[in-house]
């Protein structure tokens, strides 16, 4: 076990960092906000951590924390800027934000090390720290998916106008989501830099958008658990797929295409649907059809018609 851990430590670290990065896209998506600003925040976190560690030799918690704060603030400002955008346009605007930061990194002179980046960001950050932080984040996000918090975010995503009529300030939720996304992305970027001791424009580039989106699409976009499934699969798949050599990318593409077409809610959605069915069956069996009898009699013809594939009342009226 210990031997296995040592030879896979890089992958284990990569899994948790990818997970945080994927979450920086998944959290906005859960509120119906199609934003890639988390990738730009990853760059902010990565460079802030590197610069502070190399120049000021600060502790990792300060180096990462500073990046998180800067990215959160940037997220808030970005949210104000793109307040009127939604859907694809919002996605494009936030990709532009991320690309813009890449350009800044390349042209940052001595501060960012230009195209070659920064080296020698040595710190005391360990895998245990990374895992602890990620678990804390997951606990917080899991809580935000439950109870009234979860219901209200669901409402903002599914039907913003309804959410407003339920007294939810949709714009405020959107602003918060940008801030959280920024913090998560920066946290992932900062930790990655300190573990690898180096950062360059290449490592914070557009490919991260693809990676994060792939994880969410295949894993499932509506819960942290989906992002976790995706992060595990796509961090470990390359080492599993070594035998196909240069065909790896093709296999990737096929996996994503199949997921997007046949399992739009991701692997997590598949699991949840299975669980729902099991529960439903469990509810019907012991009572011997009691749940059917409990339905108001007046509805029966409607239900029968619907069951036979007939038009719904909505379509007929």
């Amino acid at each position, binding site marked *: 076990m210990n031997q296995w851990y040592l030879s896979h430590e890089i992958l284990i670290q990569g899994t948790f960092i990818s997970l945080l990065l994927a979450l920086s896209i998944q959290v906005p998506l859960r509120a119906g906000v199609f934003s890639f600003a988390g990738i730009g925040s990853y760059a902010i976190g990565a460079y802030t951590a590197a610069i502070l560690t190399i120049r000021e030799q600060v502790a990792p918690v300060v180096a990462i924390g500073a990046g998180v704060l800067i990215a959160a603030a940037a997220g808030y400002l970005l949210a104000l800027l793109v307040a009127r955008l939604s859907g694809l346009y919002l996605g494009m605007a936030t990709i532009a934000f991320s690309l813009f930061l890449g350009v800044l990194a390349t042209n940052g002179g001595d501060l960012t090390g230009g195209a070659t980046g920064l080296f020698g960001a040595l710190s005391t950050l360990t895998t245990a720290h990374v895992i602890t932080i990620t678990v804390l984040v997951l606990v917080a996000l899991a809580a935000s998916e439950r109870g009234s918090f979860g219901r209200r975010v*669901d409402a903002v995503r599914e039907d913003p106008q309804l959410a407003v009529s*339920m007294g*939810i300030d949709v714009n405020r939720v959107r602003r918060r989501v940008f801030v959280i996304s920024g913090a998560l992305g920066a946290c992932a970027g900062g930790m990655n830099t300190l573990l690898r001791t180096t950062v360059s424009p290449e490592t914070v580039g557009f490919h991260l958008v693809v990676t994060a989106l792939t994880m969410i699409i295949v894993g499932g976009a509506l819960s942290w658990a989906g992002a976790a499934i995706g992060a595990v699969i796509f961090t470990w798949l390359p080492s599993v797929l070594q035998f196909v050599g240069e065909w790896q990318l093709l296999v990737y593409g096929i996996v994503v295409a199949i997921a997007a077409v046949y399992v739009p809610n991701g692997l997590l959605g598949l699991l949840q649907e299975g669980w729902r069915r099991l529960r439903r069956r469990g509810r019907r069996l012991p009572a011997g059809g009691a749940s059917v009898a409990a339905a108001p009699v007046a509805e029966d013809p409607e239900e029968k018609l619907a069951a036979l594939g007939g038009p*719904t009342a909505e379509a007929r009226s």
Partner: protein
Amino acid sequence: MTTSQDTAPTSPATGTTVLQTIDVAVHYGGIKAVDGIDLVLESGRILGILGPNGSGKSTLLGAVTRLVPLTRGRVLLDGEDYGRTPPARLAHRGIARTFQTVRLLPDLTVRENIQLGSDLKLPRAARWRELVRRAVPEPVTEAIERTGVGDVLDLFPGELSYGTARRVEIARALASRPRVLMLDEPTAGMNQPERLEVAGLLRRLRDEGLTQLLVEHDVQMMVDTCDRLLAMNQGRHVAEGAPADVVRDPTVQEAYLGKRWNRAADR
């Protein structure tokens, strides 16, 4: 505004003006969806808005709930202009509404959908407690009981018949314990027994002091349920008054009803 909305609606003074619109208009380019409507909603009464398809009833409801921006005119709640209040604040001030189409959240169970209605009044401590232990607040239980959807609480909206889904929507609106309830065609797509049931429910709520604004197609139901009717056609005010008088009004009949609705008034 006091915090008296936290208790069940009572009727301190039936007949005082709760909500008022003055010369409200909503234009989309050249289309005058609503054009100069004055209405007065009195506490503990049901005001019905009658009119053919496309006459601007739903747009008027949108304007009153601030989901549709006003082109002109003023909207008053308790005599205070709320034309600049963010729409999300209105729910906190005791206005709840339903929509013309079913708008339940597909991934939440019926119970959770109804709870969404009461969430805005949930104290902070209760929100955190709910993360650990599932609790259903009393207004939710009450709304479930009143609308008779207790048998379908664990189902998802996609599994409901249309009539039941509409009742769940009414339950969700009631779960916020509103002072003013606005219903946009609550019985559309329901069968006759269900319609009567909903009409009865609305009357009972009125008798307990809940002020309502009702947009509906079913003229018989409007006559039986409302205290007052406002008839609209092409965004404009056509007639107003006691239900029986309004449906007998020649202009209204010409615009919408047809002569046979004399009978509805006579019943």
